[in-house]
């Protein structure tokens, strides 16, 4: 790896700040309107940094025994949840800078956590179950055992939760836990993303393909030919473009018109190792990609999926996650060495 300091960000990415946490930075997010960046690490620590300067705001070491596995910011930006190997979910208050609620989910790892879009429900998965909690932290319902460990969760709307596991995507009613729909396909689903309207569900599969369904017709399609398993997936805000990893290229499928069935995807090349994470900015078709090579690239895409790189930067190790500040004017990257790097994003 070349020395990071010799490689300054280019194009639209302008140097912001960088900070570090104690171990591999697993997950994070922006609170409020970007006032702070919170980060959880593999040693179980939770860190908050001032969004503008990167100065450490507060730190809680060993919040999760064994390590943090997931984090989700409450839609209001005033709270966030962390999940860990200790079988717990912690709900943190941003203003209080401390844990407001401890939820004991189970004895196994809690691998996924997600707030409903209206902030009313908190879903957490542990082993083969998913459980939903109310605003007071009380359990509302829990699912029966899935056929295998739940590999991804996502809210399709404020009233409906989706889970993925080996061979299946399941939709549950948010308030009752009643099963609404089950989409089956024999394969190991390792990641999941839903289109903003909740109509399309796309999953990355262990066998190096992306499988997707249109829920209204339950029609499914498979997009294969990836050199690696597509664990990074992202839909843009309009639901027109699905960006996928699964190799060195960022592969973009276009859902406008009759696509993507029968169409060729757009491949965006700048990474030299497997893409690990993808994030669309909330508006304006800007896509950020991070890879094992430590590169972060911001692409400006057109509606047909074609696009150009408008900014590039390098961090010290594998990029583990990317988070756009809610206003789209800054981008945070977490990496495997525990780095948290923030760039301001200009127009070009």
């Amino acid at each position, binding site marked *: *790896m070349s020395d990071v300091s010799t490689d300054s960000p280019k194009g639209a990415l302008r140097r912001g700040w960088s900070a570090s946490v104690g171990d591999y930075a697993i997950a994070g997010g922006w609170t409020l309107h970007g006032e702070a960046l919170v980060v959880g690490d593999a040693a179980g620590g939770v860190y908050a940094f001032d969004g503008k300067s990167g100065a450490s705001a507060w730190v809680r070491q060993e919040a999760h025994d064994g390590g943090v596995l997931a984090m989700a910011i409450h839609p209001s930006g005033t709270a966030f949840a962390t999940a860990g190997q200790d079988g717990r979910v912690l709900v943190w208050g941003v203003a209080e800078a401390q844990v407001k609620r401890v939820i004991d989910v189970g004895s196994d790892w809690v691998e996924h956590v997600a707030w409903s879009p209206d902030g009313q429900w908190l879903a957490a998965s542990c082993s083969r179950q998913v459980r939903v909690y109310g605003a007071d932290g009380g359990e509302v319902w829990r699912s029966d055992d899935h056929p295998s*460990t739940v590999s991804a969760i996502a809210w399709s709307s404020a009233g409906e939760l989706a889970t993925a596991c080996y061979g299946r995507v399941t939709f549950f009613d948010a308030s009752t836990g009643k099963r609404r729909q089950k989409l089956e396909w024999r*394969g190991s689903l390792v990641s999941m993303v839903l289109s903003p309207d909740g109509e399309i569900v796309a999953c990355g599969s*262990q066998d190096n393909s992306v499988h997707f369904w249109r829920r209204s017709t339950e029609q499914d399609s498979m997009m294969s030919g990836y050199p690696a398993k597509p664990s990074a997936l992202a839909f843009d805000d309009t639901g027109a473009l699905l960006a996928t990893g699964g190799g060195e290229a960022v592969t973009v499928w276009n859902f406008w018109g009759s696509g993507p069935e029968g169409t060729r995807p757009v491949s965006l090349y700048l990474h030299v190792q497997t893409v690990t994470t993808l994030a669309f900015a909330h508006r304006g078709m800007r896509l950020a990609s991070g890879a094992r*090579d430590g590169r972060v690239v911001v692409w400006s895409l057109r509606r047909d999926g074609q696009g150009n790189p408008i900014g590039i930067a390098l961090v010290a190790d594998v990029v583990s996650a990317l988070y756009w500040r809610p206003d789209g004017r800054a981008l945070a990257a977490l990496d495997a060495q525990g780095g948290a790097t923030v760039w301001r994003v200009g127009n070009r």
Partner: protein
Amino acid sequence: MNTQRKVPVSILTGFLGSGKTTLLNRILSEEHGKRIAVIENEYGEVGIDHELVINADEEIFEMSNGCICCTVRGDLIRVLGNLMKRRDKFDYVLVETTGLADPGPVAQTFFMDDEIRAEFALDGIVTLVDAAHIEQQLGRSDESTEQIAFADVLVLNKTDLVDGEALDRIEARIQDMNRMAQVVRSERANVSLDTVLNLGAFDLDQMLERRPAFLEPEYPFEWTGVYSLDIGRYELSLADGPDPTMSLVVVPDQGTDDAALREGAEWSVRRYAEPTELIRPGEEIPVGKHVNLRLDSPGRKSFFLEVDAQVRVGLYAQHTAEEFDLQLTNAEGATIGLEVERTWVVQHEHDDDVGSIAIERDGDVDPERLNAWLGKLLRERGVDIFRMKGFISLAGDSRRFVFQGVHMLFDGQPDRQWGDAPRRNQLVFIGRNLDEESMRQEFDACLM
């Protein structure tokens, strides 16, 4: 991104009751100064409070293409993927499977998943065999057969529950099924840590160093007797027996434990490959040489052994002592007692459909023909090939090509320079109903 050393992983298989938990507890309680992460199956019951014991459901993930070699352990991918992120990484991973597990998916996980492959290296597969029950199990279940076929080390456990003859028979049978594996005997899974960790079992050189004769089809001798001798002249006498001659190697400085006997056996195999020297009755037997005792005259025949220092010798004989009423006496005519003896079963009367095929040939191989042959073999017979490894002398390449594989998964790369070493090829396949003769012929057709 960093190219640090890969974390080695051992897989521990064996039927319920074979002693897996006992072995795990032994390893974890030993003072070895290593950080070992243990991934236990859902029924595991390691009793030790060990910070890195993780319970995982065995989640066998098949792929939509139906290919069995794409079947992996999904739980391992998730758990190992998360564990490897920690900065204070562990030095070693042990994966315990359930008793009825097919070792294929767990082994394939380390070939099939890119992220796992980047961080972990499959170090070896250790299978515990319950000496008291394995003979019934082999008749009844494919799983026990496959667990033996996949192994790099076979721990023949609970040896105190069966007699020596049965042990020899069982050992010969499992070794015949999987000639690549090292067999270790134990009573209560009391094997040393080195037996299970850092095997380097996928490293062929290490294996050849440990067992230089592992490619030999079988031992050319049936019996070994160990005698403790003082300085003096000894008489070895044999009565009439089934054969007019008997081959023999006298090994000096022979130990008496199982490992020493095996070591002597490996050494003798190489002596047996050398030209033999015919010894007539009344003549002296040279130590450390492949000799052929002439036994075609009627009555008891005597040969002599001259010992000029106190020594323990091992007699590796083509036939058992019983068949010729073999006796060793000193100059005073007193019979020397056996310190220890063991038999090596040469004929295999059982009909297991799983067996080993070893191909050993001098010379260079045409890369294109080899590729075509292996491709066809793995496509057509990959389901039945559990393990393979070996090295090849490719024409036009100054380096050895080493390979290994599980089912259809094949992993090979050039390794060290041949230099002055004779260029040759060694291949071993462990599989079900493999046609040895046609595989040999097809390989021979790849030779230049």
